């Protein structure tokens, strides 16, 4: 069984899965971005910084609010909505319908893409499919667990 999604261990597992599948990532190509996933949950938010370099996720770390502000963008939502996204990925093998990260951020009512810099925010679009591949890895780690 894979770790709970509101843990650094879960994102470490996604990172490991991505880094073991660089051939699959080669189709979408290199990416250079720093994203922060923010999960609102009872007892305090979880903020996980994800650093992408080339075809790999080069860093996963829990960060504070100030450090999170230095990322290119932050994806912010309630734990229940993140759970909904990952449940859809696990159920279908990849995100479908309005559960893709682009759909969620576009509508912005469940998970929003936030940042101070339009150039950082545009990286969400520039490297969107890399990010989606990263999240879609949840289906594979669930199967592997």
């Amino acid at each position, binding site marked *: 069984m894979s770790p709970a999604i509101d843990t650094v261990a879960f994102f470490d597992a996604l990172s490991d899965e991505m880094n073991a599948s660089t051939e699959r990532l080669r*189709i979408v190509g290199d990416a250079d971005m720093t994203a922060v996933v923010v999960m609102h949950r009872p007892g305090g938010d979880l903020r996980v910084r994800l650093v992408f370099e080339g*075809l790999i996720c080069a860093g996963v770390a829990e960060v504070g609010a100030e450090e999170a502000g230095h990322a290119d963008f932050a994806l912010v939502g309630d734990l229940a909505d993140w759970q909904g996204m990952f449940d859809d990925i696990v159920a279908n093998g990849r995100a479908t319908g309005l559960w893709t990260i682009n759909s969620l951020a*576009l509508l912005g009512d469940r998970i929003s893409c936030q940042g*101070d*810099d339009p150039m*950082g925010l545009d*990286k969400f*679009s520039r490297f*969107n499919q890399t990010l989606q591949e990263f999240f879609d890895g949840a289906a594979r780690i669930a199967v592997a667990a």
Partner: protein
Amino acid sequence: MTVTDDADRPAYDELPSESPLGAPLDWAWLRGAKSEWGIHPKPSPRGLTMLDIAVGTYGDIPEHPPRRSMAPRGADVDDDVVDMGYILNSKTDVWAENTRELYEEAVARQWSATRDIPWGELQELPDDVEHAVCQLCTLLTEVEMIAADLPAKWMWRMNHDFIEAKMFLCTQIMDEARHAEVFRKRALANGGGLLLSRGGPTSLLRTIIEAKTYTQASALLHLLGEGFVLDIFRMGELIAPTDVEKRIFRMCMQDEARHVAYGTMHLRYAVENDPDVAEEIHAALDHGEQVLIDFGTAPDVSTALALLLAGGAEHVEDKGFPLALELTKKQFTSYLARCERAGISRLERTTVPLDLLGIDPEQVRGAAPVAQGAQS
């Protein structure tokens, strides 16, 4: 700088001065030149990138190149090289701090409209939806190529010392060819076809192609036009009836965002280093915004988008148009924030009805702190 005309090097005096056919030979390049020598760029983990080789004087981009020839920047150049008649001879004319990075990104993230779209998964769609998809694809096939024609119009006039900028624009041209290809293919692939092409889009396209300077053209194309198309591609998640169209929009979105990133940072570089150019950009955008509004509200464009957002003709009024209005608000908000980032605030000057669209200027200002400095 280390140069190759080192006295300790072999003189190669024994080499022939004539070819076997009697033609004179010149071995000057072997005996030494003023070119930099002895540099060993280190490949990064992903290979040897343009950023890796931008070391020593090879990485220096001159503000005003001394020649107008096609001689490679950093070579030992004869005085009598041919003048190519370049007119964009200042770095501020074309440069952006993220040019090399964007070039590498573009090369690494190329995709194929033939191979990477799951064409075999196309499904028969309701008549109204297939027509709307085809109408939108007709429009996109038409407008995407302006982003190839425009750089092509200016590239041969750019000084060759700015080769990285020209290389990036080459990738943009390839991207746009692929976009025209993928939307044309989609229009034809599912039993539909190309539908109406009318005057509105042409007016926008002429405005872009006829811009008087490259920087004006970049403002109209990269910042305004492609910024809006980028948001349409992002909207693809909502307007695409199947995963095939979603895949098309997502892949195009990534490309388009690169072009916008170049334009935003080019304008920023231009304004920072040549403040006089700001008024030139504003003048282009004054006109461009009006033309874009005409384009966005053109009957064919707005109806096709609204129908797709509604999922069909039945809910165009109660769902399609309200969603379209929300997305228009997002488009203008993104555009105005990019203008702030580029250092050409439009908030006091734009004639876009911000109140009507529900756009808060303070929110736009807050989304783009100028103090962050250039980053890609």
